[in-house]
């Protein structure tokens, strides 16, 4: 017992959580006593005795779990011990509940945790749909409904879509570029463990007096600055999720720049790597803005500053500018990794090289740059500077160009190929092409000022965001889950169940979100618990389809859990793909490679006789160790072998 509390691990983390919480609480009480203020506070004063523990308790948990043990040792000046790799790799299920530095373990931790959040967010959505099945108020009152859509969106965005991509890439990206791990394995583990902390904070807000946060995932001031205590949990949770994603992005960037295998120059990187490079640039550049915005809201709420208090000279609209300066790039943070996944899957299952590989990579970078120049298209009706509207409309429409390039390149890849559509991941990739194009088109419509003014804050916007986030991001996430499931588990999932899952998801998704365009055009407002009777029929249809969508996900969970345990052995390379993660065993060895592979060609040369992407062992058997002279030449040789059409 005592030993369990002394060594890093869950028991010590629990203890750390308690101590951290008590410390924060005591600190507030002591400081208030010293400065002669009332010790306990009321709503009017922002609850510091809840907010401060809301920061210190999660930090206590992380310390207890052992996230900082190495750094504490280092800081105290003790000699560094050579790594014995005892925190690397998972040998039993218990290792997944520890501070683990293996990128493959962290990848699975991410994927499973975020998928749990997906289920929670999904349940909240079903509750909303149940309420909306008929006009009037049946199940939840309007106040609770506000909390439902706010927590639903916050959980889905900050705890599912953004981090699940980080999880998938964590698993495959180091393998793909021939690296033994990420650049900063301990930071990587810390990034993961900050996520459950954000989750706990979001959920804890349901316990707060006044209910869970209810100002939407956008948390606009002054709605948020005047909201009850629950809103503060949103402000804090976003900080943890944001810190986690910045740290991961930094890790990806350093890994991609400094740890590529010999011969893997930039033009030989798989598109998934390119996609995560671009995404990470967006995260590093944009995420600090939401951190800043939430800090300011928290300070307005907790210590009475006036950033957004118009009466005291504050500026309300500045919140929206700062928020969207993050949150528009964020929609690409939620989409670019999916683009990467789809490129891998389409090329592999169509057995064709990517059409216009270089243009695909350049389009990604184009999106990164443009993404910072369109934020105010969310603010056409906010009363912001009138002169900013038209420039923002133009940049918004421009962003459809690189996006369109990607669509056409996938179509070009598919053109005249031998489709293997019995594989579920390919089905999801094809489904993604259809649904994402619809979402992109409604996006372009929204980018046009007159139309946007007409449908602002209606279900049309809800339809758009779900076509791009469900039909876009979630489809690519499933696409990636199915594609790499054999690699991660060493087993094969049931394709028949996978196909049922796909078709039910597609039908449920279309049935749920297509009608939303129509009722939105006719003026049904978003974020309401009750609505005019004329929308009743469509809402009933939507609710029915949304339950089909919900049930479909249970099939997925069943398929994954059972196949993980009992599925047939998958073999190392069931899809006969070329990229490096498929050239190691399934699941990959604890340290990924015995020796770093050597990259000799592009990643997608299907059907090119004799083409190879990477050589795993130099010579057969007799290993040539040490840096090979030929390698330097290959690295600087200006990528001979990438796909055609650029």
């Amino acid at each position, binding site marked *: 017992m005592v030993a369990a509390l002394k060594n890093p691990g869950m028991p010590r983390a629990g203890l750390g959580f308690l101590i951290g919480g008590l410390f924060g609480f005591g600190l507030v009480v002591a400081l208030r006593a010293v400065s002669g203020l009332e010790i306990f506070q009321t709503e009017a004063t922002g609850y510091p005795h809840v907010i401060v523990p809301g920061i210190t308790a999660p930090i206590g948990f992380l310390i207890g779990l052992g996230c900082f043990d190495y750094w504490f040792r280092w800081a105290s000046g003790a000699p560094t011990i050579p790594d014995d790799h005892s925190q690397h790799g998972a040998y039993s299920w218990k290792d997944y509940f520890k501070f683990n530095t293996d990128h493959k373990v962290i990848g699975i931790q991410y994927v499973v945790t975020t998928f749990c959040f997906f289920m929670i967010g999904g349940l909240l959505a079903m509750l909303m749909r149940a309420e909306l099945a008929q006009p009037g108020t049946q199940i939840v009152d309007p106040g609770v409904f506000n909390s439902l859509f706010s927590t639903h969106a916050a959980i889905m965005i900050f705890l599912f879509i953004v981090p699940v991509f980080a999880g998938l890439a964590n698993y495959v990206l180091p393998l793909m570029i021939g690296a033994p791990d990420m*650049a900063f394995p301990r930071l990587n583990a810390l990034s993961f463990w900050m996520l459950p902390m954000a989750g706990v904070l979001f959920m804890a807000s349901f316990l707060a007096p006044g209910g869970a946060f209810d100002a939407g995932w956008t948390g606009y001031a002054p709605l948020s600055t005047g909201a009850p205590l629950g809103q503060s949990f949103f402000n804090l949770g976003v900080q943890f999720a944001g810190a986690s994603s910045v740290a991961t992005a930094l890790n990806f960037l350093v890994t991609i720049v400094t740890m590529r295998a010999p011969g893997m120059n930039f033009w030989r990187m798989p598109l998934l790597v390119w996609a995560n490079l671009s995404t990470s640039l967006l995260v590093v550049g*944009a995420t600090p803005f939401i951190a800043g915005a939430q800090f300011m809201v928290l300070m307005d709420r907790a210590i009475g500053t006036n950033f957004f208090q118009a009466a005291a000279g504050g500026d309300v609209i500045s919140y929206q500018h700062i928020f969207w300066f993050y949150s528009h790039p964020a929609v690409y943070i939620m989409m670019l990794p999916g683009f990467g996944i789809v490129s891998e899957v389409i090329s592999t299952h169509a057995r064709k090289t990517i059409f216009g590989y270089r243009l695909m990579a350049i389009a990604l970078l184009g999106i990164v740059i443009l993404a910072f120049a369109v934020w105010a298209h969310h603010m056409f009706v906010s009363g912001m500077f009138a002169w900013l509207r038209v420039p923002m409309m133009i940049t918004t429409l421009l962003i459809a160009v690189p996006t369109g390039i990607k669509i056409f390149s996938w179509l070009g890849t598919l053109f005249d190929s031998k489709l293997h559509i019995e594989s579920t991941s390919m089905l999801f990739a094809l489904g993604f092409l259809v649904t994402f194009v619809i979402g992109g088109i409604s996006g372009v419509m929204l980018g046009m000022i007159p139309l946007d003014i007409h449908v602002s804050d209606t279900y049309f916007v809800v339809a758009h965001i779900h076509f791009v986030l469900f039909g876009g991001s979630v489809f690519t996430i499933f696409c990636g889950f199915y594609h790499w499931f054999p690699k991660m588990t060493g087993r094969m999932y049931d394709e028949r169940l996978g196909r049922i899952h796909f078709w039910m998801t597609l039908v449920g998704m279309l049935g749920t979100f297509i009608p939303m365009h129509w009722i939105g055009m006719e003026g049904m407002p978003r974020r309401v618990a009750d609505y005019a009777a004329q929308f009743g029929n469509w809402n009933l249809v939507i609710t029915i389809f949304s339950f089909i969508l919900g049930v479909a996900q249970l099939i997925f969970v069943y398929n994954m859990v059972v196949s993980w345990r009992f599925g047939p052995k998958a073999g190392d390379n069931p899809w006969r793909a070329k990229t490096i993660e498929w050239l190691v065993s399934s699941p990959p060895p604890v340290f990924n490679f015995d020796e770093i592979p050597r990259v000799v060609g592009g990643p997608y040369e299907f059907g090119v006789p004799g083409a190879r992407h990477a050589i795993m062992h130099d010579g057969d058997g007799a290993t040539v160790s040490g840096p090979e002279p030929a390698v330097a030449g290959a690295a600087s040789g200006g990528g001979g072998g990438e796909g055609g059409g650029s």
Partner: protein
Amino acid sequence: MESASIAVGSAHAHEHHGPPEAHSSSKIDRQTLGILLFIVSEAMLFGAFFASYFFLREVSNPTDVWPPDGFELPKAIAGVNTAILISSSFTIHWALEGARKGNREAMKMGLAMTWLLGATFLFIQINEYVHLGFSARDGAFGSIFYGLTGLHGAHVFVGLLLLSFANIRAWRGHFGTKAEDHLGVEVPGIYWHFVDVMWIIVYVTVYIL
């Protein structure tokens, strides 16, 4: 920071073998690139507060005198404080040169002086807060003044923490002349330069303009 050591083959000889050493595909080392990217994201965080500053000054209160009547800033004292912080950039540079050339005394003295200068800066800043006569609750100016200088103060604090670690290790005899052996001085040093440059921007914006 020092996590790169994981890539170095394990010292254990028995069956428990370690990962192969990663191929280094860039001239820049991981820690330096990492801290530079971190600084980019930090600069963006300041960007959020500068954006707020812009809106509060130019959009919400465009015609008012700025700072509004009743808000006096001690420009001169803050100017001296600025000079103190800038000089610490030179001392950290001195420490780094010492580390590179194997001059341990210079390294230790440089680190210690940087730490003291940084602590002095923070002390004067807090003293200024106490005597300013307005708080973060006073108008938009109070909020953004404390927002920007406080955010910067927090960065000085973090920088001081990193420097404390570097000091402890330096005085306990760590750090060598090879580049990878004194990253523990180099990385906090880069961060400290960032804190200094950021202060110049904050000072000019908030106190002078």
